[in-house]
């Protein structure tokens, strides 16, 4: 029946009785199925909440968490208020995903607790109680908890997203300078003291839980969650994952023996282990040497380490703030050398730079690395530069991924068969550079790869060049610095230039220009009028003298000069005369008087009449030039103060149009120069920065 009722516009021939079978469920598709779709799969698709019947949620996830982790897509469906992007880490407690909260437009970290815990009796209540407690811990060195909840049997925590690395990754990337180690420890102490004052014990202090953000600040994660891990009545079971086992090294002795009687001093012990590891590169197991015995500069810290690692809680420091003070004292000791790298396990390879987390050292692709995506646009050499190639540069784990596709710049359409992807391992890259040009910003990658980079510019073998748009400069710098960090090159400068710094840089650049433009304005407003007045008074002064009859031969050429001037400007003269409301009779009088000029007899009054409109003209033009000069001065003011870009552009154009005396004496050059400078990206951006904004 559907054969005829199907609207012709939908254009499907359904009358034919060919029994096709569905490629997904292998069932025969009924001949009258609308649109040739397999109806069973269509319903299945709607039921399973999935995009494709192929990925049923039952297959995506089993109860054997963390072996089977929910995919970001599934989590996005379970928690529609978040856009879950990727898995960034797995720990003993659960898995952490990077996500975005679109409503508030902020990045968040979503921690899904392992379903192993959910099986424990009354876990949900304990989880809720702990989460509420954590939400109260509001401290700059503690990862904030925004929200928590339960969905489909999974308990989740919504936390502040820290764009950076954890201390474990920092350690494995190379030794930290000793002073930085102590700074980190002091920040941890500060956070612990705050939490202990609130009655919260971390219970799981270890390098993995100490995060360092882009600015090198410490953020402690997973406060108090370890409490959920262990039932207070029974000792910790040893059947955990690798991660759980790892944390035993940092646990206080009483945590292992009597988990029920753990207090805040357990955190102090764990902190001692972290400090020892940071200083020596080893764990304090068995009979361990003190840091000062390994490196003499750490002798002032021996006391601190020994006291935090006391077996009996009452013999340790009783407060985290005491540790902080002790570390502060040790830092000021003369034996302590702040720049020397700590630890003896590994030679100090590359100094740790917080902005450039080394990609290779990370077990999971760090979000900050995956984020660096830089679009580029270049001419396509394979079509003789007649087409453009659009593409993206991105860092994925330890590879630079170049995706590109060619497009016809005239029709702006994609060209088929001209797209592709190149993957360049970071180990093959020898150098990366980025230059902020005036209009084009080239990003160059020098590499040792022998691959043929078809479709990309290779000005010479082993070098790739990309042109970055002005708005992507900052991203490009980040990308280049990450590559440079990974290959051991020092980072390029000006990475995070503050807005005010940008503005003052532009101000310095535009300073000379502003002065030049104000000089042009000055020519128009002061110099030219002064010249005019001088000229005019000179000219009106000469004819006002009575003619000397004794020297007619001199007065004769003078007169004839006057005559030629009058006759050439006769029509203008009449026009301006009409304008100035001169009497018609006077005009006639002058017309009759002009032939009599030939006689050389006294016609002085006629000459003054002729000069009057010229004088008005002169005053008028001077006034106009004066006005232009004032405008140019305002343009110069804009340039000097880096304000009102559009007005500055308009004034630069006015400056270079040769209709005013200033343009002729140099305004053309100043105008062009100023236009070029104003169009430059870095200067253009500077105009948008509010000078009063901090």
């Amino acid at each position, binding site marked *: *029946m559907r054969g005829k009722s199907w*609207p012709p516009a*939908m254009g499907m021939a359904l009358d034919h009785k060919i029994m096709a079978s569905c490629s997904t469920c292998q069932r025969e598709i009924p001949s009258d199925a609308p649109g040739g779709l397999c109806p069973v799969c*269509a319903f299945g698709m709607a039921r399973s909440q999935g995009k494709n019947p192929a990925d049923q949620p039952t297959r995506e996830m089993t109860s054997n968490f963390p072996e089977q982790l929910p995919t970001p897509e599934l989590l996005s469906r379970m928690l529609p208020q978040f856009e879950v992007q990727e898995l960034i880490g797995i720990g003993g407690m659960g898995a952490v995903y990077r996500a975005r909260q679109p409503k508030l437009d902020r990045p968040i970290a979503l921690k899904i607790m392992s379903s192993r815990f959910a099986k424990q009796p009354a876990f949900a209540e304990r989880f809720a109680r702990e989460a509420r407690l954590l939400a109260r811990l509001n401290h700059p060195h503690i990862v904030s908890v925004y929200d928590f909840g339960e969905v489909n049997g999974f308990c989740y925590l919504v936390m502040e997203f820290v764009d950076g690395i954890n201390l474990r990754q920092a350690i494995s990337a190379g030794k930290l300078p000793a002073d930085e180690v102590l700074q980190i420890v002091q920040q941890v102490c500060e956070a612990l003291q705050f939490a202990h004052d609130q009655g919260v014990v971390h219970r799981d202090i270890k390098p993995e839980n100490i995060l360092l953000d882009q600015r090198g600040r410490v953020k402690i994660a997973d406060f108090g969650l370890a409490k959920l891990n262990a039932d207070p009545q029974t000792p910790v079971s040893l059947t955990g994952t690798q991660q759980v086992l790892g944390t035993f090294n940092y646990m206080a002795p009483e945590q292992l023996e009597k988990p029920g009687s753990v207090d805040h001093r357990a955190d102090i012990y764990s902190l001692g282990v972290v400090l020892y590891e940071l200083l020596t590169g080893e764990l304090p197991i068995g009979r361990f040497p003190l840091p000062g015995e390994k490196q003499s500069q750490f002798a002032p810290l021996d006391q601190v380490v020994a006291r935090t690692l006391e077996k009996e809680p009452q013999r340790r420091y009783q407060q985290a703030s005491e540790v902080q003070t002790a570390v502060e004292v040790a830092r000021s000791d003369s034996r302590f050398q702040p720049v020397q790298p700590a630890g003896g396990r590994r030679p100090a390879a590359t100094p740790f730079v917080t902005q450039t987390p080394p990609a290779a050292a990370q077990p999971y692709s760090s979000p900050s690395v995956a984020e660096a995506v830089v679009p580029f646009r270049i001419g396509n050499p394979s079509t003789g530069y007649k087409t453009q190639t659009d593409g993206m540069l991105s860092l994925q784990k330890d590879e630079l991924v170049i995706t590109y596709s060619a497009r016809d710049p005239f029709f702006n359409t994609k060209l088929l068969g001209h797209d592709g992807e190149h993957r360049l391992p970071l180990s093959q890259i020898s150098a990366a550079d980025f230059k902020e040009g005036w209009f084009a910003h080239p990003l160059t990658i020098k590499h040792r790869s022998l691959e043929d980079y078809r479709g990309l510019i290779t000005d010479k073998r082993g070098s790739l060049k990309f042109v970055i748009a002005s708005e992507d400069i900052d991203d490009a710098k980040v990308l280049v610095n990450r590559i440079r960090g990974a290959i051991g090159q020092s980072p390029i400068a000006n990475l995070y230039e503050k807005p005010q710094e940008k503005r003052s840089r532009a101000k310095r650049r535009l300073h000379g220009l502003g002065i030049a433009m104000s000089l042009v304005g000055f020519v128009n407003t002061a110099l030219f009028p002064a010249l005019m007045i001088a000229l005019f008074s000179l000219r009106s002064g000469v004819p006002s003298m009575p003619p000397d009859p004794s020297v007619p031969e001199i007065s004769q050429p003078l007169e004839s000069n006057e005559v030629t001037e009058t006759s050439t400007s006769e029509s203008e003269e009449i026009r301006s005369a009409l304008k100035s409301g001169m009497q018609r009779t006077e005009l006639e009088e002058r017309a009759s008087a002009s032939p009599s000029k030939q006689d050389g007899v006294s016609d002085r009054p006629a000459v003054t009449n002729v000069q009057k409109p010229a004088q008005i003209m002169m005053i008028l033009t001077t006034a106009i030039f004066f006005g232009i000069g004032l405008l140019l001065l305002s343009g110069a003011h804009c340039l000097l103060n880096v304000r009102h870009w559009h007005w500055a552009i308009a004034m630069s154009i006015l400056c270079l149009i040769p209709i005013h005396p200033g343009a002729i004496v140099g305004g053309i050059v100043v105008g062009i120069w100023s236009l070029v400078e104003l169009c430059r990206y870095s200067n253009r951006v500077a105009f948008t920065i509010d000078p009063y904004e901090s």
Partner: protein
Amino acid sequence: MSLGPDENEEARPRPRFATTQWSLVAAAAESASESNRTALEQLCQQYWQPLYAWLRQEGCSREDAEDIVQSFLLETIESRRVERADPNRGRFRTFLLASLKNYRANWRRGERALKRGGDAQRVPLDFSLLGGDWPAEPIDQESPDRKFDRKWALCLIENSLQRVAQRSGAKGRGDLFARLRPLLTGADDADSQQQVASELGLTVGAVRVALHRWREDLRQAIREEIRQTVLNEREIDEELGYLMAVLSE
């Protein structure tokens, strides 16, 4: 781990209906208000085909089936029938079939003649598409009830597809939609995607993205379509399961 559909559905904004159309109709059965009538009319217009198929399968002639459907729907829309429905149970589908069975038992030729003579009003079913002809609907071996359910399921998919087609047509991509429609339920077959892509001058990536979006649209459309015929959100999945079972037999 099974996903509870209700939590997710309720968290999501519902695009079209605050409550299901059928629940609206069933709840307000006593008062034959104008909006109530419109809602029911709309539903009947979308689902007259299974009724017709059922009647044909029962052995009615084409003319009889046409008349019965016309007068049955008219009577139903005029709210002479809905009040007899039990709004707490039953879905629109079962209600409609039960009512039709009842109606047919009482239907007599003479009544029909009277109705047609005395009251010329007809329900505007969308026959315009057919050029005045009713579908032939050949009689086969299926039981009438099963045929009704099967036709219902297919009709529902068609309505959902039309919803998606209207949306994609409104976005100016109706042509691409017509080409990709058969691929919506299939497994991701790179060859056919490549073929469509090269014929339409697109990249395979663009085709995949379009497929992905339309699959999601179709999923939503089917759920919206079913939502109209059931009483609450929970029943959507039950109904889906039932229709799937009917089609898989």
